């Protein structure tokens, strides 16, 4: 199969200013937005490029489109290419929807005659028929994005690049976009997406590339790359804690002050340090709410349910032991709680404890991947109303 895009040892360097002076020469250093990356894309492939913010995704897209030139390395694009980087880039707010369609179509290399002959098709797709001759400054952001995307349906390019353009519009419009993109893929177009919406990308793309700090970390099937992506993502989520000192106070009666966990081959052991300020601790239950990474409830475990009683000691440590086999997911979020069983007053932590249960055994089990993202219904067939 012929290669549509070939990237060979690509490096892209930018200037990063490190001073905030208003005059004369500012101090700067050079940074590599992309560092020695190589990959190729075959004709007809649909590829998703994922990574954290600042990993170099948009830079790579701009280089493939020809907007930026590489600092080192080569990029060979063997077919015609169009890019949609930003739904507002070609739009001028003083011009009408009609005018902006002509301009946007022109930036995609279409002739004025072609655009004018297909204007009705574009307007129908964008659902802006009633506002076609209204200046775009009176449009909502959603209307502008729909307008901008709709022009791309005329694109004749063999390769289409999309940067974060899957998330706008209502469900109906998103389905329309999705159907159109699926048609393009079926018709042999090469598609390249940058998005943070993994769920949409799974259904559109058969190959994922994970970028981090300008380097390719993983390249392959969606499952393989997404597991790796989450490893990176989760390490950097500030609101989650690993082995942290989570404090939970219930009135001035009782508190949970330290939570630790330990994973053995068979079990997950979670220890809570309980401090009692008031010896009257009747009617209290302490427990754990356990959710998966998509925040879907897995289970709750409590002292009462496990017939564990709190002693009269001022401080004690209690342990919950859960068999690892219970969890069919790689990461769990643990929220400790304290509940007054009579008044039903309840407190829990805002910040959960993150626990990595196991390393992934990579399979092609798409069902597992969908459950990983809390997608209960696996879309085996896309139905458009």
């Amino acid at each position, binding site marked *: 199969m012929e290669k549509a895009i070939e990237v060979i040892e690509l490096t892209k360097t930018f200037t990063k200013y490190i001073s905030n002076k208003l005059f004369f020469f500012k101090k700067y250093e050079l940074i590599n937005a992309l560092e020695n990356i190589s990959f190729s894309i075959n004709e007809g492939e649909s590829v998703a490029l994922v990574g954290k913010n600042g990993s170099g995704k948009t830079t790579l897209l701009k280089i493939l489109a020809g907007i930026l030139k590489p600092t080192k390395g080569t990029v060979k694009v063997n077919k015609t290419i169009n890019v949609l980087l930003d739904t507002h880039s070609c739009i001028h707010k*003083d011009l009408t929807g009609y005018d902006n369609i002509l301009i946007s179509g022109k930036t995609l290399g279409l002739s004025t005659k072609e655009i004018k002959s297909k204007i009705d098709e574009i307007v129908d797709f964008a659902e802006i028929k009633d506002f076609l001759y209204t200046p775009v400054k009176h449009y909502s952001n959603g209307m502008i994005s729909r307008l901008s995307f709709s022009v791309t349906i005329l694109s004749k390019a063999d390769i289409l690049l999309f940067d974060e353009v899957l998330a706008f519009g209502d469900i109906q419009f998103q389905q329309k976009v999705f159907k159109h993109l699926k048609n393009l893929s079926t018709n042999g177009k090469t598609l390249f997406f940058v998005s943070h919406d993994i769920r949409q990308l799974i259904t559109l793309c058969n190959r994922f590339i994970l970028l981090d700090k300008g380097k390719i970390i993983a390249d392959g099937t969606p499952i393989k790359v997404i597991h790796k992506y989450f490893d990176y993502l989760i390490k950097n989520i500030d609101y989650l804690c690993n082995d942290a000192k989570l404090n939970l106070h219930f009135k001035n009666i009782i508190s949970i002050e330290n939570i630790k966990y330990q994973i053995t081959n068979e079990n997950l052991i979670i220890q809570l340090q309980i401090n009692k300020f008031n010896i009257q601790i009747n009617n209290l239950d302490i427990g754990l709410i356990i959710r998966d990474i998509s925040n879907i409830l897995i289970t709750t475990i409590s002292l009462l349910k496990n017939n564990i009683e709190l002693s009269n000691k001022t401080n004690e440590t209690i342990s919950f032991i859960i068999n690892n086999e219970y969890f069919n997911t790689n990461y769990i979020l643990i929220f400790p709680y304290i509940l007054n069983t009579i008044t039903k007053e309840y407190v829990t932590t805002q910040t959960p404890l993150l626990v990595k249960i196991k390393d992934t055994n990579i399979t092609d089990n798409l069902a597992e991947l969908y459950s990983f993202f809390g997608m209960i219904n696996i879309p085996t067939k896309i139905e458009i109303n």
Partner: protein
Amino acid sequence: MFTAFFKKEFFEYLKVFTWREIKIKYAQTFVGIFWMFFPPLMGIIVSYFFLDKLLRAGKEIPNYTLFAYCGMMGWYYFSYLVSYTSISLLQNVDLISKTTIPRIIIPLAKSITGLIDTLIWVIFAIILKFIFLKNFNISLILIIFPLLLNFISGFSIGLWLSIFSIKWRDIYQLLPYIIGLGMLGTPVVYHANMIPENIKFIYYFNPIAAVIEMYRKYILNIHIDLIKFTPAIIIAIILFLTGIYSFLKQETKLSEKL
């Protein structure tokens, strides 16, 4: 590198983006495109009522109204090109950094918008010639040469300024002074005879001075030795060709630097 300018797609781009510039320029105005008539009408009012009748600035210059009008016509298009071409890249950062259109289309579209305005000036100049000189001759067709030189000199300087401004936006701070001092140093509303002889040679190196004198020659039918302006014409052509070459070389860096 220069062959791209002669392709059909290039002219299509130019047509669409020039039309875009015109629509943006007159968007949300009541009078709309009729604002094009305002600058030349103001030129006539200033040269006839203010300079000629009130200040008597050209009491020794025959047909002073038309004389001053020709100067203002040349200077209008030159200053339009310098101002709008130099700032065109900054005004269209999104187009440059997120699309693949040929970047030179952006300053070119601005310059053609100014050319359309200037053609209105030319039409008024012909009308004034008919009113004041009561004649109309075929040599008026030669006005295309100063018009071309007007474009070349203004566009090249505007393009060079836009290239410098990619890295140093200090240019925009200096621009009003460049245009103001340039107008004083060019015989827009005064005769070249007022320039002292010991520095008059500079005058023959000034491309816009050549433009204005050519307009006066073909509209007023006065004798002007254009051969003396050969250095100015050569400078304009060199600046134009080197400006386009330099711009096209920088094209791929524009989206990083803007």
